[in-house]
């Protein structure tokens, strides 16, 4: 700082470069390992020691998980180098150079663009195939034929919320002024929907899509934009850059409901399957519901996993890598180009370190590709394996993925046995390696043509009899820790945590935020699970919890309110969502519920609660630093 040497260009040799780069990467990757390790260990140990089923394709999953770690490290670094500085620069310049109308236009465009890029939304669609069109026509429509309307409504919801957020920064009014009416309307609509036959089934989807929208691309960008704007805003005395994220996860709920209401009249009401196929629906309704090619969808077919030969496997892997890369490009590139063009052409500003921003964008794309790949091959596989088998704690389930085909089966080897009630049962012995195991014989699994007997092993119930209480409890505890440990790895939360720590100058630590959010998500997941197990309507969960939150808000400081509500939107991202949905679908299928939605909604309401409560505790100690001696004097 003090020396007065003339500028020298520093020459860095290859070895020095390595000594600079290695510790840098080491640190970044180590941080991500620390974040991801808990969820991985948890899932693996749970499957091995509680469910007692060996992990399939362990090598591939291990590779996938390393990809998650590497991808996260790159992606987050890219975010901090590229997208966030861009967002903040834009936020600083917008109010200085443009009028309010242009800011609104820009905010809508950015909100819509960022949402359409968000990778987590596509996961919602994946659940669509599990819904039958006759059980819930509206839900089926929105997830399949009408998914475009669903995406668009979500994106517009986010766009509008960005507008409101930016207006809030410019004019400096408190978050509560938007939050309270929005939530009151939302709760009202949810209650209305609860009494409507068709809308009832989409309320889970609506609340979940709110939770899903705000992911690792939208959140950092929107927060950075907000920081920029709130810095230059004259009327904003207590500069707080938060609150947009929570709006961005509330408004889409409303817009999905609105779209649902629009289509509700055009679609048939839920009906039994037979009615649906006979005379149930009109032609135009069917066209809308099932698309142009409207043919009756075949009922659920179970495809048996075939042995994949190595070349096929490589082709599949190549396709997956390509998909992951394409997904990443689509998420980052159009958005960055839009931001760069806007900054360059409309605002006519230069970026201070262009090469750093470009490197950051490159890093984000590389990171997101590796991350996507890792999610497909690592976490999703592991999550599906555990999630699908989770019901075995209280029920016996068929392990379809470990079906055995016994060739040259001879029915003569079938023996008879007597069960407790005195009835006859058939079984045969199978020699596996060195031991003989008795296997129940079912006639329908015996294929006489090719002489193959198909044996689907049955697992569980692990804890006592069918539907035992302990088994349910294990599921609930599992849900809590799944939510907790998955949240620790969530990239958007990590980015928000960094921003919070930076803007509060370290008075609000990242680790504190992440821990309290994680506990909240855990509780929410637990409750969401309970909802599916006991078939509680979502309204019964959402209404009381949000009313409680509004009540708590009145006791908290605006600083904590903003951060608490924002962290709710952030929690459910690309790591949590697939895992929780896999678990929800696994349990939902066993329980025969129509939709497995609603867990995410619960999982994103509870972090608000936990962060608010944590804020109150922190606030209390801060007050103590101000007050105790005063009290003494009085």
């Amino acid at each position, binding site marked *: *700082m003090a020396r*007065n040497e003339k500028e020298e260009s520093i020459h860095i040799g290859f070895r020095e470069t390595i000594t600079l780069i290695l510790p840098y990467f080491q640190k970044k990757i180590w941080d991500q390992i620390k974040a991801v390790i808990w969820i991985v260990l948890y899932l693996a140990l749970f499957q091995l020691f509680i469910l007692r089923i060996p992990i399939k394709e362990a090598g591939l999953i291990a590779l996938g998980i390393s990809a998650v770690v590497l991808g996260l490290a790159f992606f987050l670094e890219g975010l901090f180098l590229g997208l966030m500085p861009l967002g903040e620069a834009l936020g600083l310049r917008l109010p200085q150079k443009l009028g309010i109308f242009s800011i609104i236009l820009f905010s809508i465009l950015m909100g819509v663009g960022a949402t359409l890029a968000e990778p987590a939304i596509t996961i919602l669609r994946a659940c669509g195939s599990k819904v039958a069109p006759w059980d819930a026509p509206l839900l089926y429509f929105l997830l399949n034929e009408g998914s475009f309307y669903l995406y668009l409504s979500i994106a517009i919801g986010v766009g509008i919320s960005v507008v409101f957020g930016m207006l809030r920064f410019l004019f400096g009014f408190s978050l509560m002024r938007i939050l309270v009416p929005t939530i009151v309307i939302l709760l009202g609509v949810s209650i209305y929907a609860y009494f409507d036959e068709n809308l009832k089934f989409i309320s889970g989807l609506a609340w979940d899509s709110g939770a899903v929208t705000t992911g690792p691309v939208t959140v950092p960008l929107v927060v950075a934009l907000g920081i920029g704007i709130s810095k230059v805003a004259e009327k904003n005395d207590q500069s707080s850059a938060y609150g947009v994220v929570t709006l961005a996860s509330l408004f889409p709920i409303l817009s999905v409901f609105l779209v649902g209401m629009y289509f509700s009249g055009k679609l048939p009401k839920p009906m039994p399957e037979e009615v649906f196929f006979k005379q149930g629906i009109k032609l135009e309704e069917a066209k809308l519901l099932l698309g142009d090619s409207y043919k009756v969808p075949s009922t659920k077919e179970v495809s048996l996993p075939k042995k994949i030969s190595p070349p096929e496997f490589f082709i599949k892997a190549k396709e997956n890598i390509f998909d992951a890369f394409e997904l990443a490009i689509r998420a980052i590139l159009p958005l960055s180009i839009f931001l760069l063009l806007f900054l360059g052409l409309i605002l006519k500003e230069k970026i201070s370190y262009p090469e750093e921003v470009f490197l950051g964008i490159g890093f984000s794309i590389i990171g997101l590709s590796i991350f996507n790949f890792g999610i497909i091959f690592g976490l999703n596989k592991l999550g599906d394996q555990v999630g699908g088998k989770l019901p075995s704690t209280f029920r016996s389930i068929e392990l379809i993925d470990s079906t055995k085909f016994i060739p040259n089966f001879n029915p003569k080897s079938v023996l008879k046995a007597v069960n407790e009630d005195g009835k006859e049962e058939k079984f045969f012995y199978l020699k596996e390696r060195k031991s003989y195991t008795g296997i129940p014989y079912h006639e329908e699994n015996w294929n006489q043509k090719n002489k193959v007997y198909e044996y689907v092993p049955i697992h569980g119930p692990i804890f006592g009899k069918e539907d035992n209480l302990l088994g349910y409890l294990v599921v609930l505890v599992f849900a809590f820790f799944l939510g907790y440990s998955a949240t620790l790895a969530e990239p958007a939360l990590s980015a928000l945590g960094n921003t919070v720590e930076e803007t509060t100058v370290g008075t609000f630590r990242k680790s504190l935020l992440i821990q309290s959010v994680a506990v909240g998500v855990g509780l929410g997941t637990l409750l969401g699970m309970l909802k599916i197990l006991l078939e509680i309507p979502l309204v019964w969960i959402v209404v009381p919890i949000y009313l409680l939150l509004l009540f708590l808000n009145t006791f908290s400081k605006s600083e904590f309110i903003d951060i608490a509500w924002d962290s709710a939107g952030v929690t459910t991202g690309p790591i949590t969502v697939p895992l929780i949905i896999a678990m929800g679908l696994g349990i939902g299928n066993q329980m025969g519920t129509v939709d497995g939605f609603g867990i995410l909604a619960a999982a994103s309401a509870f972090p608000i609660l936990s962060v608010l409560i944590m804020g109150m505790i922190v606030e209390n100690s*801060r007050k103590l630093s101000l*007050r105790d001696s005063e009290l003494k004097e009085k």
Partner: protein
Amino acid sequence: MHFKQKAIRITAIVHRDLTDLVVSALKRNNIHYFHMEPGRYPVLAKRGWLLFDFYQNHSIIDTPVTIFEVSCEASTENFLLSLFRDAAELNIPGHGSVYSETIEFHSPLPADYIVTTEEKTKTIGFSGLTGIFCILPRGSAEPIARLILQNGVAVPTISYGTGTGLRDQLGLLRITIPKEKEILKLVVHSSDAEHAMDFIIEVGRLDLPGRGFIFEFPIGRGLLNTKVSLEGPKQAASMDQIISALDQLYGNMEWRKKSNQFRQSARHRNYFEGVNVVINCKEESIESTLANLRKVGVSSSTISLNKLVHSQNEKNAFTPAREVANILIPKKNLSEVLSLLEETGFFGEETEGIVYTIEIPRAFSYQSKLGKRK
């Protein structure tokens, strides 16, 4: 010939909950321009419950503060000091501190930027204080702050900043060196200053390259925060109250000096002197300014963000989002730096720059062999 004007800079560090009170008091008194910056001050936490005590050997609780800066004429110093004291009730431990320094402006300023008033107020605060300004890598301030608090030296203030220096000459490789810094400021009795500095250098390993930078700055008058711990009062009056009562009784802080308790450092340190150039400009324009300054050999600096608030809403001469850079240079280079700033249009509308200097009697940082020869 450069523009030159001597003035007083008042710095007030106020508990966040009192910020609104102070802002409204400033506006009420027609103080049109003041800078605000968030920061925190660490306090030793209360003893834990029951067994938890074993684990947390006096952990730190961070209290958010707002750091105010106002410039005024010498005659207004006392008025502003008492204004801050009354607005935030700074005589109560835990509320905050206020102190004044002499600075010299080198840039044209809008009217009202330097506050002046006719009102005469009697002098308040203690003299004989010295401030210490220390730049450390992120995360290093806390252990130092803890030791400072435990020894009862002072209550430090920590704020965030970014550093430029060696990094910027590396090209893209710069991303491998974290630029995030923590700025630790504390005010101690002048006779303790050297020892406190020595102590921080030792603990923070500032004698190693790339670790940070420290300097002391003279302070006119000050009223300091005495709240070191959240520990509830065990006696009728808390320790903090006793300290502040004694301060008032003696009318100074002489009795609090700690110098005889410090371990005398055997090592001889190469201190140097210079001027601290404070550059304040529109956010996002400091980078280019500093890049220009590198031509005259100013290689490193610390940047922090602050907000410039004005109470009148129309006719604002400045954008509120600001960046501040602290640069320490040898005194002989000052004119060179200033004329370069003027040449590059730093004071123009594009960057809205403000520049002032503070004389630094003693500074320390790791010096390369090259630096020592000079």
